[in-house]
């Protein structure tokens, strides 16, 4: 019989019940969407790595004579190995020098497909040997609209050579298409071309050269042990750098993305489920309050504590069951969308979408736990009510202590005397717990909106900082071979050029007792004015560089367990010599984890003197494009980037995040809507007689709606700043988890974003008033004034 009553309660509160199911459903759907999306993405990447035989490690070699790939293949633990020529050249799109990109030429076996780092051909065909034919990586092809049959012009050592694109393919090595770790992904500026080995060698003018040996190990093999064996086989003096899969640029960046996805998959559902739970708690508390008399009657008739407890827990469980079902269906659709978005964005060639039994079970368990957690307190309260007390009016219905709230007394001199203003204020204090939970619910919804928006604002801020503080140049040119000062002096006289600075930027390996890191090392004259340093520890950048020490980022210092004065061993591929470098300063960098030293250190590491490979040019804004063209035409120019274009393309690429922004903001606002709707709906239900009386004695529905609005606004006034503060704090915690060597985010939200969120909240609150206000308009006054409360 009590279950029948539960069902009737559900029917009697259809709107409120549906709201709760939606809130729980949204919470569960976030859990399913992000968890399944994360697993889908992970599985998709794993499948790509497995099916395309992504190398477990690769070894760069310098002295290429006599590289015995066959001997490497024969080593224990090696499943497959490929020796390849890899070389960066410049590329002119359609032969136009103003559209240049860095092109990485990668050799393929002269026949058949590579046993390691295979390609997934998406269009066209495999290249023929001897035909100057190439397969182009899909990312660049998509960005530039290049198709099979198109011709590309490559610039190598003062010559322009043409290759014909015959196929478009995805590669496990370049799913995240970056030339090096920590680089800003800019697919338009980085092309990967796969040519038959003979053609590749001929193209770059290095016949018979192998620069890289990529290895897939046996499934059970100790990868590091196999790597050591391969290094021994190749000859340690010949090894420039060994890169495990985890450190491979694409793999590293992908792992970062996936890890961020994992953090988000834990964080967002937790927040949304907390909101769902609090909303359900509020609703159930109100159900119990509004049914005090019925509870009293049930107990007077002989129903036990346990039966009454079960009755209200059943209500929560019905919400949990329907919420889980709704959440799972919606979440599965969203998971597919999320995985698809990520797979497209990251260039993962396969999409694995599954229904995960653990997630189905998890959603059911979380939904049940959240609803039981929310329901247990009100249900216990209901079961413990003594019948006689329950059948009397709720003492909470009046102001506690029969006193005007302190806040009103304090504000009395400035508060309007009109009771239409004072009644809403007192209603807040009438049931403090209810007001508290409403504030918490709305603040949580704000938290979600603020944290989400903060991610985008922080990203904007990071780019803004990159543009205006960190990178103090307009055009950057990287050259294939080092050059002397004269080139900088020459560029300085070009029209529109206001400043030229030089640096030697090298790949480098850093080793400490705490770990190893492969990244880039920038050697420049102090104070390296093309870069803005935010030093957090140690000397100033000028002093640190002048002292011969390193300036490293906080994240790298943490990874390598380095403090000021500690020493790291450093080596570059140019020369097989390790040197010890002390940490002189620790800086905060927004993007990447660059390490800076002075040019003397660069010379010690490379053996080169007065040689640079990178120009940082400052120009008048209108001349940037012209300077870029001239630099691109300069012999040996590998890649030329205009900072403004880089940032614009990165921003454009990040456009896919709009989907998440929209989704999460919609979730936040939907949550706010349901929380406020449930609150107001319950407010009107609980105060039916009071509102009916006001209307009967002549109060217009408009003024009653105004009173509800004031009450709502007051709640919002408390909840909004709390939500903003909690949101920023949460963003801080979240970013601490998300930040890595690749980038560092700091919690930040633009004032205009806060304003937009507040307006959104206001609109949501006003919209959520509509159903209760319509109820007030339709109130049967004759019945409402007779309701026993």
């Amino acid at each position, binding site marked *: 019989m009590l279950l029948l009553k539960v069902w009737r309660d559900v029917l009697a509160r259809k709107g409120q019940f549906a709201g709760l199911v939606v809130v729980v459903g949204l919470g569960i759907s976030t859990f399913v969407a992000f968890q399944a999306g994360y697993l889908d993405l992970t599985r998709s990447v794993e499948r790509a790595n497995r099916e395309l035989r992504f190398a477990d490690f690769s070894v760069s070699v310098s002295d290429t004579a006599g590289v015995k790939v066959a001997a490497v293949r024969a080593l224990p633990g090696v499943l497959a190995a490929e020796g390849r020529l890899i070389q960066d050249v410049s590329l002119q799109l359609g032969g136009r020098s103003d559209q240049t990109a860095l092109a990485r030429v990668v050799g393929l076996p002269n026949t058949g497909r590579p046993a390691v780092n295979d390609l997934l051909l998406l269009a066209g065909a495999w290249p023929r040997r001897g035909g100057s034919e190439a397969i182009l990586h899909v990312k660049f092809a998509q960005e530039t609209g290049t198709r099979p049959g198109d011709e590309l012009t490559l610039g190598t050592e003062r010559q322009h050579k043409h290759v014909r694109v015959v196929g478009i393919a995805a590669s496990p090595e370049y799913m995240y298409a970056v030339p090096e770790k920590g680089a800003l992904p800019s697919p338009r500026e980085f092309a990967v071309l796969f040519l038959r080995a003979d053609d590749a060698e001929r193209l770059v003018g290095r016949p018979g050269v192998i620069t890289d040996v990529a290895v897939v190990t046996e499934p059970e093999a100790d990868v590091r042990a196999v790597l050591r064996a391969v290094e021994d086989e190749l000859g340690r003096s010949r090894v420039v750098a060994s890169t495990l899969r985890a450190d491979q640029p694409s793999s590293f960046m992908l792992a970062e993305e996936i890890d961020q996805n994992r953090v988000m998959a834990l964080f967002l559902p937790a927040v949304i489920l907390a909101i769902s739970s609090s909303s359900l708690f509020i609703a159930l508390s109100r159900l119990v309050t509004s049914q005090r008399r019925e509870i009293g009657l049930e107990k007077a008739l002989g129903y036990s504590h346990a039966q009454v407890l079960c009755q209200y827990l059943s209500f929560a469980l019905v919400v949990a069951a329907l919420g889980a079902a709704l959440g799972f269906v919606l979440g599965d659709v969203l998971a597919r969308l999320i995985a698809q978005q990520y797979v497209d964005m990251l260039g993962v060639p396969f999409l694995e979408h599954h229904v995960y039994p653990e997630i189905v079970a998890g959603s059911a368990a979380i939904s049940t736990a959240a609803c039981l957690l929310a329901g247990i307190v009100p249900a216990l309260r209901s079961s413990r009510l003594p019948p006689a007390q329950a059948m009397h009016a709720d003492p909470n*219905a*009046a102001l506690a202590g029969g006193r005007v709230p302190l806040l009103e007394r304090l504000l009395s001199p400035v508060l309007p005397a009109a*009771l239409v203003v004072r009644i809403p204020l007192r209603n807040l204090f009438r049931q403090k717990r209810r007001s508290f939970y409403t504030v918490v619910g709305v603040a949580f919804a704000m938290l979600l909106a603020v944290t989400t928006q903060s991610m985008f604002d922080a990203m904007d801020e990071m780019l803004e900082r990159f543009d205006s503080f960190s990178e103090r140049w307009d055009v950057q040119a990287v050259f294939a071979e080092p050059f002397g000062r004269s080139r900088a002096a020459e560029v300085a006289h070009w029209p529109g050029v206001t400043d030229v600075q030089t640096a030697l930027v090298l790949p480098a390996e850093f080793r400490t007792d705490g770990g190893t890191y492969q990244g880039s090392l920038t050697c420049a004259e102090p104070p390296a004015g093309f870069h803005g340093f935010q030093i957090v520890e140690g000397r100033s950048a000028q002093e640190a560089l002048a002292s011969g020490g390193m300036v490293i980022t906080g994240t790298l210092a943490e990874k390598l367990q380095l403090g000021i004065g500690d020493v790291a061993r450093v080596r570059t591929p140019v020369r097989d010599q390790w040197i010890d470098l002390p940490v002189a300063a620790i800086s905060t960098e927004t993007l990447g984890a660059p390490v800076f030293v002075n040019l003397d250190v660069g010379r010690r590491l490379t053996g080169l003197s007065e040689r640079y490979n990178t120009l940082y040019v400052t120009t008048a804004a209108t001349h940037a494009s012209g300077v870029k063209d001239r630099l691109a035409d300069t012999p040996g120019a590998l890649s030329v980037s205009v900072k403004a274009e880089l940032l614009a393309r990165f921003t454009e690429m990040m456009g896919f995040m709009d989907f998440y922004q929209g989704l999460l903001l919609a979730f936040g606002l939907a949550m706010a809507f349901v929380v406020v709707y449930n609150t107001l709906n319950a407010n009107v239900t609980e105060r039916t007689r009071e509102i009916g009386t*006001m209307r009967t004695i002549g109060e217009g529905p408009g003024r009653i709606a105004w009173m509800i609005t004031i009450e709502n606004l007051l709640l919002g006034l408390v909840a909004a700043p709390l939500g903003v503060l909690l949101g920023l704090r949460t963003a801080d915690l979240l970013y601490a988890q998300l930040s890595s060597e690749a980038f560092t985010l700091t919690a930040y939200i633009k004032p205009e974003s806060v304003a937009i969120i507040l307006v959104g909240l206001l609109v949501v609150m006003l919209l959520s008033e509509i159903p209760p206000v319509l109820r007030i308009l339709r109130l049967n006054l004759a019945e409402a*004034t007779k309701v026993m409360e």
Partner: protein
Amino acid sequence: MSKVTVTPESLVVLEDVVKTYHMGEVDVTALNHTDLVLDRGEFVVILGPSGSGKTTLLNLIGGIDSPTAGRIIIDGEDISHYGQRELTLFRRRTVGFVFQFFNLIPTLTARENVDFALQLSGRGRRGDDRGREDSAHLLAKVGLSERLEHFPSQLSGGEQQRVAVARALAKKPALVLGDEPTGNLDFRTGTLVLSAMREVNRLLGTTVVIVTHNQPLAAAADRVLHFREGRISRIEVNAHPIPPEDVEW
């Protein structure tokens, strides 16, 4: 042709009023072709069993319900076809209500409950001293001058109902309607409330209509309307109504 005789003293006029409720698939006629005239200053008690139509009549003349057919004229206004907004203004201007369950606003003190009605009527809208004095004066009239700043939860049932009477009178309405105003009170407090309503009726000339099951109250009325099956079955006129304090039940 109208069956009722309307004079300048007539405050409430019902002409052939019908009220039918749709209850699922059944139509229930709560008021069946009723004609009635109530004069200014009358103290009227309506008696009848449950479902006889007495509360429906009160709802109709109070403007919280509309008739299915017929005309209802209150103080010269035909409210039969009024919309929500006009009925709200009508109730605000013309009618004071006293409910069985007092229906005070729990977050307002006794004085503020009366202020609320005053502010509604346009007097004391800004809660000025005059408005506050008026509220205090009205509450003093119903014997609550010591309980002005108490909240409803701190008042007894009788006290709450007397606040409700003061609230009903705050607007200086032409008509005060009481729906079982003593129904939730004991004899002593019920008498106090009834006395307060009678006194207002005498001193201010306010027309008071009380719906009740409580037969003895009829002795205090100028006129008693007996309802049965949606019609007025009998009208009694008391030439010498007894003072409410002498009524016993």
